């Protein structure tokens, strides 16, 4: 499989004081589904931002599709063929939908990407209508973003990146703030996109969705370094690793009169299995 992103010893420091990522060496291949796991503030969002060429490493090297990513390539007023190719190829779902939904109606929001691709107006219209139909959001078509619920906003955010048909999807906490039904809807969409061959990189601390949407897991520790990079099942069964990364915690509660303690993730309320005869 072709390597699409390659990071070599990448570090990122905010305002020269606060370290967000430290000595990260990773590569992502086309068609992979990867989960980046980490506690709040571990640097997951910064990593996605670097992968989307919105933030540039303070040190180290980052290349995408075999081309080194430099600030000068993207932050220029001159038209740049590679920058256009990259933006077409990579879609980014932001954690906060209000950042992503900047147009005045849902239709305009979804049409924004295709318009940037310089597609003819009829094609933009057709694509936008098709994405709206695909996600079943016809009833939201002419609504303003401030009139949408959290789940609806997330649907429109996804529609807005799918309308440019990116091959790589970077999802930042996609299930954050969603009710269970919207979460299931989102997981199914991600699974469908994975089946269609899209590369999906998801930053999350929602352990419930990890195995459903990814095959590979990368754990970013609170020291902003990569702790583990392997298959999902191994990461999810390594409770010590998850605890050291602050993704699960030791939890104490009662079963009748018996006090009981075990490792516990808070994403599903008190969902755990007891070994026979042990409480």
């Amino acid at each position: 499989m072709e390597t699409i992103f390659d990071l070599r010893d990448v570090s990122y420091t905010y305002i020269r004081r606060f370290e967000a990522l430290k000595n990260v060496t990773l590569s992502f291949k086309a068609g992979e589904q990867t989960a980046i796991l980490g506690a709040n503030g571990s640097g997951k969002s910064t990593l996605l931002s670097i992968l989307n060429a919105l933030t540039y490493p303070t040190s180290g090297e980052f290349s995408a599709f075999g081309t080194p990513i430099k600030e000068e390539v993207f932050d220029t007023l001159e038209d740049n063929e590679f920058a256009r190719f990259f933006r077409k190829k990579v879609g980014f779902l932001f954690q906060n939908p209000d950042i992503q939904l900047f147009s005045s109606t849902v239709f305009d929001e979804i049409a924004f990407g295709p318009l940037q691709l310089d597609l003819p107006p009829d094609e933009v219209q057709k694509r936008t209508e098709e994405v709206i139909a695909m996600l079943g959001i016809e009833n939201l078509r002419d609504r303003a973003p401030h009139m949408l619920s959290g789940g609806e906003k997330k649907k429109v955010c996804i529609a807005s990146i799918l309308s440019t048909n990116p091959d790589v999807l970077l999802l930042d906490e996609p299930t954050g703030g969603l009710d269970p039904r919207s979460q299931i809807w989102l997981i199914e969409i991600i699974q469908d996109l994975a089946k269609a061959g899209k590369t999906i990189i998801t930053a999350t601390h929602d352990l419930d969705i990890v195995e459903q949407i990814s095959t590979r897991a990368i754990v970013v520790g609170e020291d902003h370094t990569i702790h583990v990079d392997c298959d999902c099942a191994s990461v999810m069964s390594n409770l010590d690793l998850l605890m050291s990364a602050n993704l699960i915690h030791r939890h104490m509660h009662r079963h009748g009169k018996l006090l009981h303690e075990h490792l516990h993730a808070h994403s599903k309320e008190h969902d755990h299995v007891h070994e026979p005869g042990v409480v």
Partner: protein
Amino acid sequence: MIPEWMQKIEAGPCACCTVSIGRKKGFVQKAISDIFTFFEECLVNDSIARRKGLLQSLDPRVKLISMVVLIFAVAMTHDIRLLAIVYGLTLVFAYLSKVEIGFFLKRVWVFIPIFAGIIMIPILFNVFTPGDALVTIANLGPNAHLGPFALPSVITITVQGTMLALTFVLRVATCVSAAVLLFLTTPRDLLFKSLRSLKVPKVYVLTMDMCYRYIFLFADTVRGFYTAKKSRSLKSLPMIEEQKWVGNRIGYTLIKSLNMSEKVHQAMISRGFNGDIKILQRYSIHRRDYVACVSVFALSIFLILVSQNLVKI
């Protein structure tokens, strides 16, 4: 560990506690509730713009240009009868566009005392508009002066002054009615895009569009600040403290908005934005748009000709 003081449960207030009902709202509370009334009205307006009425069925560009031309013509008209007819027409169009007349009148006339009334009050008196007395206000006697200015011996409201004030108020009411009708019957996004037909640069259209979108978000943030403060306020604070709090929140909102604008820009870049603004305009002009445009232009030309005494009525 929970500290000891936190483990104490206080008893409820004594049954004999005085319940006082304040009559005045604080200035912050009043300002915020007024802002939210305005935003709620904006949402109502948006639903009016989606109704199937006469003006809603017209092309937004035609509506915008027609209204601008009509407002220009009305501003030049001095004949009170013509102004009354045009004002009556705005009411008819409001009715045909399924805008509740009571709501429409309220929206228009709330501005009139502010824009026209205060300005026109002096014009009513013979001090500024000499003429036939309608109502006598005061008898000052001969040689009355206000500083260096000589005043008439009798202060009256004159017929001419009243007609002048009425004409001005009606002219303002007609212009405001036309503008309000345009805003009420056109979805905001289409209205902003139609500004392109008046050659307004794309960057201004995009900026206005985004301002309108984010003003709701920031209004919600401000409401959050105030609600959070209210929920933890045990007693009223002195005015100076309230003002300090407002100043502090304004600063915080500014920092937050700067931070957000940077992230929104990143979101735009992420989806291919490179500084070249592209706007999808989905307009189709029908026969009714031509008819509306020609009718409004004809009426406007007629009003201008009458105002310039080129046509006598």
